[in-house]
């Protein structure tokens, strides 16, 4: 490959380093980094909110926060972590990595990718707009009615919740559509479904789950807003409404969502365990099928969030059984990872520390989840700190630890520099100790009867010392996270230069330079096994230069199952339209928030017109 070819490809794909370039870019690498940075920003905000709450709860009868402030912070913590951190961070990694992993030049819809980033950002800003005017939502992250209906939650807090989340559902759905089409359509020649990296299986499953479950959230939110501001009666029993409708819709979305924030993280694990065990993963097909089945069965378990609402024994038993079934698929994955480490020759890097930590925490979080799927036990523990302990073990354990493992693992690819291993291992131990010290005692205070969602508690119930321990743990955890962020900033300039493949990894993203050039790889690679960089096949061998595709922004499209090249895909140029349309559609929701229907209608029309310009033909062609 000549330097001239590289220069030509760079010219084609590079975004100019100007402000205009930053606003118009559709490069998945830039947008992926931006996604990751923004999601970590929300993690920091949500983390600070958690620390404030832990200070309040460290001592009984604490007067540091009044109830109103506490409930606002507590709601914002949950909403931020679950919606603006846990899923977008995984999207960020997927956006950066997937095109490199499958050997293509960008996602299937690069402009949609930019649009989903901007709507994600604006939805987060809209949400925090409510905090600025001290009107943040205060109904918990699942916002149960009737508490969140107008009479009990006056003010605009819940309306901010509704519209920022609606905007986010647009962003997430767009992102999911993008992943599904990319994975089915743009894998490089030879990457059949039986050779796909497992990260693709998990992202694909999570994306399909998101496409099917997001509408339930949108519907629930729209109905809530109509109730709140337009006098409708969906959740109002006095006029034939049913309060449980909210819970049905919300959890039909909510439980599959758990798998949306969990599955891609397990996919990261399935990439990282084999590399640091120096062998291919054990039971590849079983892990792949278990991933897909988790997504499928995940649609049949939502009632387990509602065992305490009074339902027929029959339906509860069914959902209890389905919930326990999920653990079978999780167990398949866990045993595959353990076997991989067992049969391999582990290399104890910082990323591998996080991966092993994940296994330990996931097993505890999984086991206390099985316990709560048992109905009598659930009745005993519902609305106590046991549920808080479970969901933090599961979310911190299966989302944050894998994401940090992924950060240590892929940071060299993203920036071209290695993170400090020493700092990383210290950070891991602080995080691991911190989260166990913070969340394990919650099981105990729960069994001692401590209810969740309370802004304070009386002394003398035996809860004080445990709560103090939890607060100490939370600060250790926070300090551990801070160390990693210090590491990230320090290593960006001073870290050791990574080179192409510092870990000796097997997947295609490691075959390009670090950081990857704007076009990815010069020749579209071909693949002959599940571990392309560990076999003898040369991925980029292309003596005739037939897979350079340098006549424009081009990449290959291939068949869905066998990845047989079928056609050439043209990729769009940079465009300001995604940003403009994101602004317009955010304006629609902001106008609806303040019940300005005409402004909303005009902006909706503007959005449609921008969309028309977006897809309007830009190239003259002579008639054939």
């Amino acid at each position, binding site marked *: 490959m000549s330097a001239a070819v590289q220069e030509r490809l760079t010219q084609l794909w590079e975004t100019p380093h100007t402000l205009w370039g930053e606003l118009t870019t559709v490069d998945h690498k830039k947008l992926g980094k931006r996604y990751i940075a923004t999601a970590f920003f929300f993690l920091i905000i949500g983390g600070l909110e958690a620390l404030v709450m832990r200070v309040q709860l460290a001592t009984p009868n604490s007067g540091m926060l009044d109830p109103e402030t506490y409930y606002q912070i507590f709601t914002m913590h949950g909403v931020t972590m679950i919606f603006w951190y846990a899923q977008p961070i995984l999207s960020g990694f997927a956006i950066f990595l997937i095109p490199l992993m499958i050997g293509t030049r960008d996602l*299937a819809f690069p402009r*949609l990718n930019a649009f989903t980033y901007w709507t994600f950002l604006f939805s987060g800003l809209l949400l925090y707009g409510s905090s600025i005017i001290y009107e943040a939502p205060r109904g918990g992250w699942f916002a149960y009615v009737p508490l969140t209906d107008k009479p009990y939650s006056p003010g605009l807090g819940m309306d901010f919740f509704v519209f920022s989340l609606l905007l986010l559902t647009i962003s997430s759905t767009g992102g*999911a*559509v993008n992943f599904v*089409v990319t994975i*089915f*359509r743009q894998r490089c*020649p*030879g990457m059949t479904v039986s050779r796909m990296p497992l990260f693709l299986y998990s992202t694909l499953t999570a994306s399909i789950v998101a*496409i*099917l479950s*997001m*509408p*339930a959230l949108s*519907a629930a939110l*729209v*109905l809530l807003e109509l*109730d709140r501001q*337009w*006098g*409708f*009666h*969906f959740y109002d029993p006095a*006029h*034939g*409404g*049913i309060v449980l*409708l909210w819970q*049905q*819709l919300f959890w*039909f979305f909510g439980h599959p969502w758990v798998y949306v924030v969990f599955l891609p993280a397990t996919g990261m694990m399935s990439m990282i365990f084999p590399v640091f065990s120096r062998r291919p993963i054990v039971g590849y097909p079983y892990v792949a099928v278990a991933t897909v089945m988790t997504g499928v069965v995940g649609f049949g378990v939502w009632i387990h969030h509602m065992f305490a609402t009074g339902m027929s024994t029959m339906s509860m038993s069914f959902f209890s059984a389905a919930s326990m079934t999920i653990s079978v698929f999780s167990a398949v994955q866990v045993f595959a990872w353990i076997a991989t480490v067992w049969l391999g020759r582990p290399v104890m890097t910082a990323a591998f520390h996080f991966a092993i930590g994940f296994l330990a925490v996931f097993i505890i979080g999984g086991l206390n989840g099985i316990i709560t799927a048992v109905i009598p036990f659930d009745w005993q523990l519902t609305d106590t700190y046991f549920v808080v302990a479970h969901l933090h073990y599961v979310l911190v354990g299966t989302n944050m630890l894998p994401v940090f493992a992924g950060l240590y693992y892929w940071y060299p690819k993203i920036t071209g520099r290695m993170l400090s291993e020493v700092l990383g291992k210290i950070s891991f131990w602080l995080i691991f100790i911190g989260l166990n010290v913070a969340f394990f005692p919650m099981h105990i205070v729960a069994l001692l009867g401590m209810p969740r969602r309370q802004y304070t508690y009386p002394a003398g119930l035996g809860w004080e010392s445990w709560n103090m321990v939890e607060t100490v743990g939370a600060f250790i955890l926070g300090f551990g996270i801070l160390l990693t962020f210090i590491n990230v900033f320090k290593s960006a300039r001073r870290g050791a230069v990574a080179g192409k493949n510092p870990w000796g990894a097997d997947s295609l993203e490691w075959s390009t330079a670090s950081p990857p050039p704007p076009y990815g790889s010069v020749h579209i690679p*071909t693949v*002959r*096994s599940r571990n392309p960089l560990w076999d003898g096949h040369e991925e980029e061998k*292309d003596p*005739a230069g*037939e*897979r350079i*595709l340098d*006549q*424009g922004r*081009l990449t*290959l*499209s291939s068949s869905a199952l*066998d990845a*047989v*090249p*079928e*056609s*050439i895909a*043209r990729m*769009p140029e940079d465009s300001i339209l995604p940003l403009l349309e994101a602004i317009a559609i955010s304006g629609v929701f902001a106008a609806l928030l303040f019940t300005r229907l005409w402004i909303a209608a005009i902006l909706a029309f503007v959005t*449609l017109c921008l969309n*028309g310009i977006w*897809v*309007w*033909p*830009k190239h003259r*062609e002579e*008639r054939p």
Partner: protein
Amino acid sequence: MSTIDLRVPHDMGPQSPITTVIVPEVDDHRGTYGIMLFILTEAFLFLMLFTAYFYLAEGTWRWLAENPPKLHYVLPMLAILLGSSGVVHWGEKQVKKRNFGAGRIALVVAIFMGLIFLALSAFDYKEHLRDVTPQTNSYGSIFYTITTFHVAHVCLGLFMLFFTLLLPRYEPRQWPPYRPYHNATMYWHFVDFVWVFIVAFLYVAPNMR
């Protein structure tokens, strides 16, 4: 732009010989797949709303027995929408046969039918609102929510058809947008399909009781 050399080597499997296959086309299907997934998520939105309707109906079925919605606007509206689906389908076939003028006429007719649908639904609302408003009870709330959501989707579908009508040419293309006629038509079929269920669940079923 120079012409593209479209040959791509096709190298599969450890044993298979390296062969060269001709890849003759520009990928024109990504947009269609995107629209399909968009329709899928929209279909689930309506599924959720119908679920909410039946869930709420447990409490308000009594109201329906007293005063079921009338059918004299809705059945013609159904005929119009299904008819317009047929028209755009015919139009798409004509475009495939390179009768582009006929394709355009089909779009004009379909848009006109869609507008009649919107006008009739205004009349239907006017009559219906005398009996029940969205603020009357949960039945009114869900009834108007589902139908208004559908009207919004009809508007979006009409916008797509109108956009397609404005496009300068319908020949198979080497540049995006690749299959505007097909994609817009597919969305329009979806909108019409949803209306069948709305008529069945919200209008006909209550009259059967």
